[in-house]
């Protein structure tokens, strides 16, 4: 969210600012300061710095979020293998409470991986990602995957400076997860239903139902089914990814950037202030429509 240009002042709160200017004195003589800043403005500031850094190097940064064990690392392994001869180079930032295990799995495929051990922190924040970036040569990277801590709650609240959010939902978890964790799934630019090779033995998971719950969050994000293990559905995901890389290259050449579709408390303010912010895209259910984000969400 932008705290500098005044776009965070809405019809609902402007009286606070206008009443007595920025500073007012209360009846009992105390100084009242109207702030109207996101509680995470420090994180958001660092996130914007990270995003500038990615854009300068022409890197597309993707934040992967899901429950623990839904197959984020397996998806990355399959993606790395599939893109081996594509000319696209990948780097990975891994977030876990403990261990280097995931980073080691990624490195075994010949891709640089930086592990962030968060200790007890349940999410990555923009500062942690910034520290990890110092260990990577971004000039030789086209796609940076940030594998967030496995958690369907906290990671959704923190902007890391990435361009897209991808939320994974594995078929062993239950198709009503979007209804149970609306903040997380509403943040997704793409929902990937993983482990779909298991669908034939799971009679209680319906991909259509999962997608319906996603639509009930007013999200037009595409939803793809895939299996990193069998390779089923990977093509559609790889097509989305290469489209995203292409669109991002075009954007950075024009000095434009993009933010994940939903950034907490940013969207509404920008809408009110008259910035065009197309939150519900016109095209319908995403199965057959790769999502290209043709318009930049330019939060300056």
């Amino acid at each position: 969210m932008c705290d500098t240009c005044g776009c965070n002042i809405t019809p609902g709160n402007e009286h606070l600012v206008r009443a007595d200017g920025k500073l007012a004195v209360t009846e009992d003589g105390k100084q009242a300061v109207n702030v109207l800043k996101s509680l995470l403005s420090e994180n958001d500031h660092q996130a914007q710095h990270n995003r500038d850094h990615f854009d300068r190097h022409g890197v597309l940064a993707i934040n992967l979020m899901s429950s623990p064990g839904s197959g984020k690392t397996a998806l990355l392994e399959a993606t790395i293998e599939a893109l081996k001869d594509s000319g696209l180079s990948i780097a990975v930032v891994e977030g876990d409470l403990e261990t280097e295990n995931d980073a080691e799995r990624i490195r075994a495929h010949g891709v640089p991986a930086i592990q962030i051990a968060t200790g007890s922190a349940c999410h990555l924040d923009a500062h942690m990602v910034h520290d990890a970036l110092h260990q990577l040569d971004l000039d030789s990277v086209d796609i940076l995957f940030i594998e967030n801590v496995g958690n369907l709650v906290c990671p959704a609240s923190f902007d890391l400076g990435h361009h897209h959010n991808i939320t994974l939902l594995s078929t062993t978890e239950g198709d009503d997860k979007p209804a149970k964790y609306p903040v997380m799934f509403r943040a997704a630019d793409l929902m990937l239903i993983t482990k779909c090779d298991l669908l034939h033995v799971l009679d209680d998971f319906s991909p259509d139902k999962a997608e319906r719950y996603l639509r009930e969050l007013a999200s037009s994000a595409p939803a793809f089914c895939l299996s990193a293990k069998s390779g089923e559905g990977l093509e559609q995901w790889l097509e989305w990814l290469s489209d995203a890389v292409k669109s991002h290259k075009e954007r950075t050449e024009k000095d434009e950037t993009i933010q994940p579709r939903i950034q907490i408390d940013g969207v509404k303010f920008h809408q009110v202030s008259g910035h065009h912010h197309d939150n519900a895209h016109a095209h319908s259910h995403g199965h057959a429509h790769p999502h290209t984000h043709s318009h930049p969400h330019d939060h300056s």
Partner: protein
Amino acid sequence: MHELSICQALIEQVEQIAIEHSALCVTDIYLTIGPLSGVEPHLVEQAFPIAAAGTVAEKAKLTIDKSPVKVYCESCGTETIVAANRLLCGECGTWQTQLRGGDEMILQRVELESNKEE
């Protein structure tokens, strides 16, 4: 449980404001938090004293305004209050709505005690 991180960020902002206004202490902090911010107001209330201990905001009273989830429907032009996990238009039921409220996580206002009148 990221509410503690949020409170620590809040305290940093409040401390900065207190310094800017040469305040002796912070007496009141007003937040607005919506259900779609991913932050639980009562957990913020619990985490606040831990983050505030030993700071200029140690004795501050925290007031949280909980904003409702509101969606605007472009097809029928109405704004309705809805549940956080069903952002369908309350009038016509379409899912292509725009969120108009309920995702806020904002520091609205801080009240300070200071030596001098400014």
